[in-house]
């Protein structure tokens, strides 16, 4: 029988490092930096080879890291809004992940440069003679589009930066008032987050097919974001625990909870994805059905089925058992799998605009993924190596130690 709760609760003097040791930190930054540098080189080569394809490939990789960052930001806000006690350490890790959002302002530059290729359906001259797009021109015009992008990314960067900075301030001062102020800010933040994510999804992804519309699209992107952010959190949690860190704040119980949330949001993704699909399929209106029809052509059909099975049915069955969620290697495998599936999901949403009729994967897609992925890894490595591994003076630290699942 496990004595874990008592041991954790009564032994705050367990020898434990608050930070990564310098060698490990340096190694992490070096590896992540190497991936980022390799990705950047590949991106340059890909851009020189085929600028148009690169724009689409890069948008896929870029949105992959942005959605992961957004999922992490949502997690941070959610912990404050619910005054969660179990997740004190997890919140810090998600603060690291959400630090990609300020960087995303820079990462967005290639998307802006490639906008005329990406959004040629409504940015190109033929849009003026398109009866549907003429009616949408008040919203879908380049000036307003760029202005909206500026608003979204500034808002996301500000929120991510503010929550992380306030949390770091508490490491030094231990002031409980900082927790209160984060709680106060979290409620309006979650509203702003919901609206900006939904409209951001409409603008950046849905407008790739400007005739098509789906009001639930933002929620669909949100579901995928949270799954993949939790997958990254699972990797960080297991990685740090495996290295012998977090002994005072994180046990297999916390890992189990991350697994549970990942499982829940996988189901949520399927629920929303199916809700979007079924209404369109059932009504069978040409301007709505066309989007799914395009994704049922040639090899896109295989990609659609890969999503159905790989993003839902297989992980659902796999993650159903508590033993899997409490098993380190099994959870890591599931997390990597879900991250890959989130990329397939975005690929399936973005690439059919370019590859009509059939999917044509290319090394350029890999370049478009590896660049942003490397930067995300570098951001996380820098944050992990340059600060405490958990909020050192959070008022709920004692509570997080005692947390157990029934």
């Amino acid at each position, binding site marked *: *029988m496990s004595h874990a709760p008592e041991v954790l609760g009564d032994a705050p003097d367990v020898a434990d490092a608050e930070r990564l040791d310098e060698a490990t930190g340096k190694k992490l930054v070096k590896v992540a930096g190497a991936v980022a540098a390799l990705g950047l080189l590949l991106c340059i080569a890909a851009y020189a080879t085929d600028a148009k394809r690169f724009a689409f490939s890069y948008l896929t990789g870029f949105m992959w890291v942005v959605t992961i960052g957004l999922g992490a930001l949502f997690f941070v806000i959610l912990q404050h809004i619910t005054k969660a006690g179990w997740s004190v350490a997890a919140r810090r890790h998600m603060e690291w992940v959400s630090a990609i959002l300020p960087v995303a302002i820079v990462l967005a530059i290639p998307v802006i440069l490639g906008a005329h290729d990406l959004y040629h359906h409504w940015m190109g001259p033929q849009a003026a003679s398109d009866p549907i797009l003429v009616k949408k021109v008040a919203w879908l015009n380049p000036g307003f589009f760029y202005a909206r992008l500026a608003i979204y990314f500034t808002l996301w960067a500000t929120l991510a930066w503010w929550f992380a900075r306030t949390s770091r301030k508490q490491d030094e001062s231990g002031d409980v008032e900082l927790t209160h102020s984060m709680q106060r800010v979290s409620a309006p933040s979650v509203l702003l987050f919901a609206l900006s994510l939904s409209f951001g999804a409409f603008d950046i992804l849905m407008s790739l097919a400007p005739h098509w519309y789906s009001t639930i699209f933002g929620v669909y992107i949100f579901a995928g974001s949270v799954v993949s952010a939790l997958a990254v959190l699972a990797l960080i949690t297991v990685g740090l625990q495996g290295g012998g860190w977090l002994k005072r704040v994180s046990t297999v119980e916390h890992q189990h909870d991350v697994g549970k949330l990942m499982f829940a949001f996988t189901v949520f993704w399927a629920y929303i994805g199916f809700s979007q699909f*079924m209404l369109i*399929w*059932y009504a*069978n209106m040409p301007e709505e059905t066309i989007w799914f029809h395009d994704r049922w052509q040639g090899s896109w059909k295989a990609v659609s089925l890969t999503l159905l099975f790989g993003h839902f049915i297989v992980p659902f069955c796999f993650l159903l058992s508590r033993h899997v969620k409490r098993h380190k290697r099994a959870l890591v495998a599931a997390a990597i799998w879900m991250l890959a599936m989130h990329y397939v999901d975005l690929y399936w949403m973005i690439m059919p605009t370019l590859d009509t009729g059939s999917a044509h994967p290319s090394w350029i897609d890999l370049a478009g993924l590896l660049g942003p992925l490397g930067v995300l890894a570098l951001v996380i490595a820098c944050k992990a190596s340059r600060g405490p591994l958990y909020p050192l003076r959070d008022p709920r630290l004692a509570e997080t130690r005692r947390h*157990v699942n029934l």
Partner: protein
Amino acid sequence: MAHTESSAGSATPAAAAAVAAAVDVATRPFALVGHFESPAQLYRACETLRDAGYEHFDAHTPFPVHGLERAMGLPASKLPWVVLCGGTAGLSLAVWLAYYSQEVWYRHNIGGKEAFAIPSLIPIFFELTILLSSFAAFFGLWAMNKQPEFFHPVMQHPSFHRASDDLFFIAVEARDPKYDPVATRALLETLGTRELAEVAP
């Protein structure tokens, strides 16, 4: 009991032991019951009993005490398996029902879709899976707790009504192989148990 008749009237030592055992069974209480004033005391008592090797004892508290099942050394609940069976049965039932009603028994052209149009049937698959999972969870829990049960021997303890108010009860059952009327009572007393009383079956 089966062996009481054979032991009647005999004078051998073995038969005497059998008589003693029979008498013991007849007069043996159901359990030794007492209470604590705080969940912490109860929690510690449960850990002590568990570590002393007791298996048949129970705790009665006014509210759920987190981690008590670990302190008592209870095995993991089998309820998830019951729910899984319920959910699988629900899904199978839904697929069977939808297939036979849509494809075999009443084929109709609805909106130009196939007869057995899976997307339109997924809500049914989903709902029936949930429904039978919930039934399995709800009724499974009743069955595993042997409910409904209108009388339980521990209710005979004079203060037991306070188990739903402000006292934390422990009941060590006499069928436990470690149970000894004297030693068990002494152990519970050292743990601070109040108002110890044996209750009849």
